[in-house]
């Protein structure tokens, strides 16, 4: 049976809530270490979400250029705000980082399927901006001491909300500057996955090379690993077929609809 087909075997825990479009006010922005890392605080939407789900953001001030909205993980949602953690990498993220408080953003969400979070121990593997979807998860987890996190980053730690997650967690951060650092990090990733595999669920998010390493060890150790992928998206709702990833069964499935979180053993990276 194919878990990606509509009506197929889909884990109910991760099934998307019915998404909607809302126009949300910007409450404020906070820069982290530099203007290229920004926490964007929006009015909280009415819907609930599961960590790993994402939103498409398009400020109302955008005319027709840039054209597409931009996808971002939901970093955290409270009664006061929804928070998005953004790294400026191009024009769209630059414009978002400069949004004035009081201006409005078109927000479509919650989109896609988030992480399935079982009750037992969790190992979180985050690379760079891959930390974004985990912040709320960790802060809201009833037993943070059950969570271990390994965080790899190429830029200074001050840019990322690493310290902000609960102190009760087992947290480890590794800074990669050289090629050697990257190799070491890959090794450590392998060790942690191997050691943790029998104990619980592993959740990973980060850039593609990082996910490939994670997937490699996940398959080798037969660990239960969920990975969140980032693909180029136009519509965010399954319509354009731009964001597809290939499954083991050679099917092309929309990551905005059936992902961004996939079981590591179901897709080809």
């Amino acid at each position, binding site marked *: 049976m194919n878990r990606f087909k509509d009506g197929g075997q889909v884990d109910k825990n991760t099934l998307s809530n019915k998404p*909607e479009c809302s126009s949300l006010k910007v409450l404020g922005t906070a820069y982290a270490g530099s203007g290229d890392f920004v926490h964007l605080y929006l009015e909280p939407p009415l819907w609930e979400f599961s960590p790993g789900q994402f939103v498409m953001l398009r400020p109302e001030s955008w005319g027709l250029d840039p054209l597409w909205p931009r996808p971002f993980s939901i970093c955290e949602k409270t009664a006061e705000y929804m928070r998005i953690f953004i790294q400026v990498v191009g024009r769209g993220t630059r414009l978002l980082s400069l949004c004035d408080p009081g201006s409005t953003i078109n927000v479509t969400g919650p989109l896609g399927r988030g992480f399935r979070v079982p009750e037992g121990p969790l190992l979180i593997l985050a690379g760079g901006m891959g930390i974004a979807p985990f912040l709320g998860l960790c802060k809201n987890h009833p037993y943070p001491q059950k969570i271990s996190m390994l965080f790899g980053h190429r830029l200074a730690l001050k840019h990322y909300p690493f310290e902000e997650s609960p102190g009760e967690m087992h947290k480890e951060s590794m800074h990669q500057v050289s090629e050697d650092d990257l190799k070491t990090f890959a090794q450590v990733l392998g060790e942690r996955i191997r050691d943790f595999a029998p104990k619980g669920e592993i959740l990973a998010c980060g850039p593609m090379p990082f996910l490939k390493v994670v997937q490699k060890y996940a398959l080798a150790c037969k660990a239960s690993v969920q990975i969140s992928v980032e693909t180029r998206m136009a519509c965010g709702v399954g319509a354009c077929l731009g964001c597809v990833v290939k499954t083991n069964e050679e099917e092309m499935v929309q990551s905005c609809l059936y992902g961004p979180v996939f079981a590591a053993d179901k897709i080809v990276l």
Partner: protein
Amino acid sequence: MDLSVDLGGLCLKNPVMSASGTFGYGLEFSSFGDLKELGAIVVKGLSLKPKKGNPVPRIAETPCGMLNAIGLQNIGIENFLKDKLPFLPWKETPVVVNLYAQSVPEFGVLAGILSDEPGIAALEVNISCPNVREGGVQFGQNAKAAAAVVSEAKRKCGVKPLIIKLSPNVTDIRSIALAVQGAGADMISLINTLGGMAVDVYTRKPRLANVFGGLSGPAIKPVALKMVYEVCSEVDIPVIGLGGISSAEDVLEFILVGAHAVQVGTANFLRPDFIFDLIRELPQAMSRTGIASLEELRGGLETVEPSPVCA
């Protein structure tokens, strides 16, 4: 305010249809608005067998536009009829199937399959497809090949109205339009995407794995308007205009140059409730231009004979 349009065999409650490939199978948008509010739903191009499409990256953003090379990924005509159509509000809103094939007979087979489907209001034939027999030149780039597709589809489609969707990548769009009208098309829709490409100077790779893709979005609206105007001046059958529509006023622009109806494509990606809002805004835009029915505006462009373009 009268929004209805009669396309000769296809009546719409308003002139706004979704454009093929930008609205999935329709159902993707049902959380964001009531599908019954659309003039018609045109679904993703369907082929005889399911298709996997091109490798990624398949899309790239460009100034006020985008490129796509999806490669016609689709679930195949049979799966569509079985798994999607029953969930679409086809009794209230015409559902139009966009057809993709690589040979003339294949188009005929597709048309035949749909000829008896009560849930299908019309067929839209995408002739911007490479003709495998002719080394991949698109049917739509050659008047004869285009006419051959139309004749065959017409022979097989029974009473279903046949819309032929033209490619803009031609020297003379009018000659293609006349050819498809002559071959029995009931309606013409245009434009499909313009050929284009984008590259990354850092990786030295094309931004689309397929290298080439189709350009769509507001950037191409001026090209679309001109071609729609030219075709409307040339043919007698109803014309459906599209290309870069991103507001209710844009809809009226296409009506003004002669279109009977329009399709909204890339703008659906701005936000998924876009087309529903656009339809709601249409009556206001009509009042602003001082009309109570689209008929009053259609083809009403005040112009002297244009001279050939030369910058």
